[in-house]
């Protein structure tokens, strides 16, 4: 082992310099496009309702109401940044810490650095072009990026259709991809598709240049608009490069009633899976009531981007003190 003692950083001076330089490049990129850097609170009264995303929470004992308040560490700055957009902020970006209450891994640390930005007047296609420009600039990629729909990625690389194939052929394909898991049938269709994606598609896409996968199934819409031309898919995209998921973006849902409905549906799924319900961020919904401009937004993992830039094989090589040494 290279780093024997747990007080020591797991990074080298070289990667620390590379991080500082990457952040400088990103800020210069947005400065040149006149996108404003903002800050929003890391601690928030509301949190995400997603079944598979958990925030850390803590108690605030000094609230001006005199009662203890539960606050959550943000899993992304999405809701707060959209409140700024609703307050006519115009194009904004943020570089900050995000937190997910989940395990560590080669590509995962529960505390990580996220770049998130929003472009009023953009749809997801325009935003994908901008993400591509940023990636080409910081990674120096010379090849053109790939663009493929979620549906075509499955058809091309696995020979099944994620929108129409029967469950039996999905199970069959999972076995062919070597996905040996107890109780495969009890996984949701989305989890089955996600496993197939990570075992059977991720290793084959975005090998030389970033790959943009778009039009995710509507059941995985998260906060994206449903496509007006095909209600089976949502205007959501992800970016894959060299085997890692780098970014996730939406043509942003702006309809408050539908947003509330999705939060409620999430909480219903949580209850069915035996998980606690999450408080809905009412500030965010009130902001949507006042009107979110048409916009597209994207979140990008800075640590993973840095890993690709310096050729790191584990996220610990780019984070000074990963959670096991925090």
């Amino acid at each position, binding site marked *: 082992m290279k780093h024997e003692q747990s007080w020591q950083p797991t990074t080298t001076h070289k990667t620390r310099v590379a991080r500082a330089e990457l952040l400088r490049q990103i800020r210069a990129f947005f400065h040149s496009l006149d996108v404003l850097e903002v800050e929003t609170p890391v601690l928030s009264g509301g949190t995400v309702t997603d079944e598979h995303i958990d925030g850390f929470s803590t108690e605030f004992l000094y609230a001006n109401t005199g009662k203890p308040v539960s606050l959550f560490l943000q899993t992304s700055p999405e809701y707060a940044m959209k409140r700024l957009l609703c307050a006519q902020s115009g194009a904004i970006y943020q570089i900050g810490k995000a937190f997910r209450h989940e395990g560590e891994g080669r590509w995962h640390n529960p505390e990580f650095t996220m770049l998130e930005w929003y472009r009023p007047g953009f749809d997801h296609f325009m935003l994908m072009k901008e993400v591509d420009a940023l990636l080409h600039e910081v990674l120096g990629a010379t090849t053109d990026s790939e663009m493929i729909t979620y549906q075509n990625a499955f058809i091309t690389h696995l020979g099944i259709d994620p929108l129409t194939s029967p469950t039996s052929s999905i199970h069959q394909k999972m076995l062919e991809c*070597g*996905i040996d898991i107890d109780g495969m049938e009890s996984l949701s269709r989305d989890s089955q598709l996600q496993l197939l994606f990570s075992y059977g598609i991720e290793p084959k896409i975005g090998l030389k240049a970033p790959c943009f996968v778009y039009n995710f199934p509507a059941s995985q819409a998260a906060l994206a608009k449903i496509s007006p031309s095909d209600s089976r898919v949502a205007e959501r995209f992800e970016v894959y490069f060299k085997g890692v998921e780098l970014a996730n973006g939406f043509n942003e849902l702006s309809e408050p009633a539908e947003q509330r409905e999705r939060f409620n549906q999430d909480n219903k799924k949580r209850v069915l899976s035996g998980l606690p319900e999450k408080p809905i961020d009412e500030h965010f919904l009130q902001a949507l009531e006042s009107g979110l401009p048409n916009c597209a937004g994207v979140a990008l993992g800075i640590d993973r981007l840095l890993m690709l830039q310096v050729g790191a094989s584990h996220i610990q090589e780019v984070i000074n003190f990963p959670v096991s040494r925090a």
Partner: protein
Amino acid sequence: MANYSTNEFKGGLKIMLDGEPCNILENEYVKPGKGQAFNRVKIRKLISGKVLEKTFRSGESVEGADVMDTELAYLYTDGEFYHFMNNDTFEQIAADEKAVGENIKWLVENDVCTITLWNGAPITVTPPNFVELEITETDPGLKGDTAGTGGKPATLTTGAVVRVPLFVQTGEVIRVDTRSGEYVSRVQK
């Protein structure tokens, strides 16, 4: 035996799978941004030696396997069992033919082998990386061949057959790599 959650998975951890003790070789955390978390695990079954891949839901627990390695010197075989002894405590353990398997041909008296015990009973016997054995039979080679280009088969005292250079003769002791089964050198008696 304790249970382990997937969060504790790492290379070297011994767990039970399908009633067989296994060694975790690799563990990868798979978590799509908005999706369910899984652990993709490469496992070696310790009795059959099979390597396979298994996927677990993150947070799931599996039973640990009481498996430990111990260094014991080989004593002798009574035809049915192979007897080993701890050189410090003089405690003896007998392994059956199934545990010794293919490695029967590398067992040399007094050599210290690694015996893997599951619930106290031997399941595998791993000989030292290098053993020295005498040749009991090989064709007399051509004089003057020192490069050992072609080679010839030689039978050793344990019955093992190894390719040796042409200049190596019956009665000589040779050093063999037990991992590859290849000849390394002659040994001065």
